[in-house]
């Protein structure tokens, strides 16, 4: 009995600690314009949202570790040994299957662990894993519209600073090379960067573009009925101008809900 009580206390402490380390900004209820003209995947429209609070940063390795420690959760990649990892030299859009990779070794055991990267976003987790974290932490994933409203921070342009794609380097960890045949560390990082390392958007959210694709709840106008696809937004450290330039407020990616890649992560929201 004493043991059970101790375990329960530990779980409560870990949950509170994980939430305390996340800062949130409040987004008021209201009508917001999202989408883009002539873009069927995400058509320009006005949406009505209830108030919500969204995390200032992506969920980090430290925060995910607290969840795993408290619950013993085993991720999709750990169970299925089918994570997809990256190393320089691959053709565009190609990833390596690595049976050793999971969130603690996001690009496989041979490419190192996260011990020096506890303040980086957690990766190599699936949409289902992100939902499990949310259930434990009392948060949830943002909807596609909530994510976009927060990323736009009041702007109506493709990027929250306007239309100039090249300004991305101040705000995001992305791939600056022309292709992925050789390593790109021009912004200091080939893989993930610590959260909040680059400049925030006008509402104070860090890394809405780049670093990791962020899982969102919801469906797009192009989803087939009964589709079980998940969606992720904002681009990642892998994304370059020439390949998958999703580091903007408009694009929406499709991904299998159990796929684990080392450029996929998430941030969380709470009801206000």
């Amino acid at each position, binding site marked *: 009995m004493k043991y059970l009580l101790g375990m329960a206390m530990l779980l409560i402490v870990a949950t509170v600690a994980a939430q305390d380390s996340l800062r949130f900004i409040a987004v008021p209820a209201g009508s917001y314009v999202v989408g883009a003209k002539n873009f069927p995947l995400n058509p320009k429209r006005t949406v009505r949202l209830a108030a919500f609070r969204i995390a200032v940063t992506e969920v980090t390795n430290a925060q995910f570790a607290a969840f795993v420690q408290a619950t013993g959760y085993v991720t999709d990649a750990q169970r299925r040994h089918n994570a997809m990892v990256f190393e320089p030299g691959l053709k565009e859009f190609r990833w390596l299957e690595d049976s050793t990779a999971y969130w603690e070794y996001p690009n496989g055991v041979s490419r190192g662990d996260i011990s020096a990267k506890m303040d980086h976003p957690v990766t190599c987790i699936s949409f289902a894993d992100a939902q499990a974290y949310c259930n434990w932490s009392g948060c949830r994933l943002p909807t596609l519209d909530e994510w976009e409203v927060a990323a736009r921070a009041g702007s109506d342009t493709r990027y929250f600073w306007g239309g100039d794609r090249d300004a991305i380097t101040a705000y995001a960890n992305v791939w600056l090379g022309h292709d992925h045949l050789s390593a790109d560390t021009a912004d200091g990082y080939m893989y993930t960067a610590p959260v909040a390392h680059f400049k925030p958007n006008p509402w104070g959210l860090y890394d809405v573009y780049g670093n990791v694709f962020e899982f969102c709840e919801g469906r797009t106008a192009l989803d087939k009925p009964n589709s079980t696809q998940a969606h992720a937004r904002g681009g990642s450290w892998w994304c370059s101008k020439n390949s998958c330039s999703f580091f903007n407020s408009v*694009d929406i990616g499709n991904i299998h809900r159990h796929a684990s890649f080392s450029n996929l992560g998430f941030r969380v929201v709470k009801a206000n």
Partner: protein
Amino acid sequence: MKFLFLGLLSLLPFRTLLAQEYPMPSKESMAYHEARFRKSIPPYGLAKVKEMIAKIQPDADEAEALSSRDYLSLSLREKFTYHMIHPETYAQNCDAVPPVMDENKKIFSRIPSSFGDFIWSKRQADFLVENKDSVCALIKESALRSKRIGCNYKEAILEMNAVEMIPFLVDFYNRDKKDLDLLTVFLQLMEQNKYEPFMKSASWKKLYSENASYEAYLDYNSANEALILQRVTDFYKNYKR
């Protein structure tokens, strides 16, 4: 009532949803869009391969691969069929490709991906490259019989860097000049082999240079068509094997 309405809305075909927001692509454009994403289904051991896939993928929701034992039990032709209908691993987060206006009048910089959320695994890609001659022969045989080259066959041609298929593909294209993605295959072959005259061209700049969009395209017209066919023929003649 609201839920009933939303439910009914979700059943509306894409064409209807599109009509609410955009100028509609023509019937020809929409039909061409669908044709671009159609795969070729090889006949070799098809029933046997489908049965084996059904056993590993009961709910069709996961990326699953045949066990090594089952995989090795397949003949080369059956393996080809397996790869063309069953990618074994997940594809990275990517945009859905919606129909665009006048799609049937555009020569895109890249062929569409064949399998949505999935992609060929390393052993599948390796099979194609290691058995290039046989795979090329099977693609030719299948294409001549079905009179079409599906997006998965095109993807395999690029995966294998099958430059030797260029004369066949040029002849195939010239039969009816309707599959503009074959012109895209030529562009991608020249691009991935860094064919110098192409790399210096205005077409390359528009399609593949640093500031080119992933959705870049050339207008389809007889001048662009003739230029691509001439260039790819020259590329083939000068290609060092």
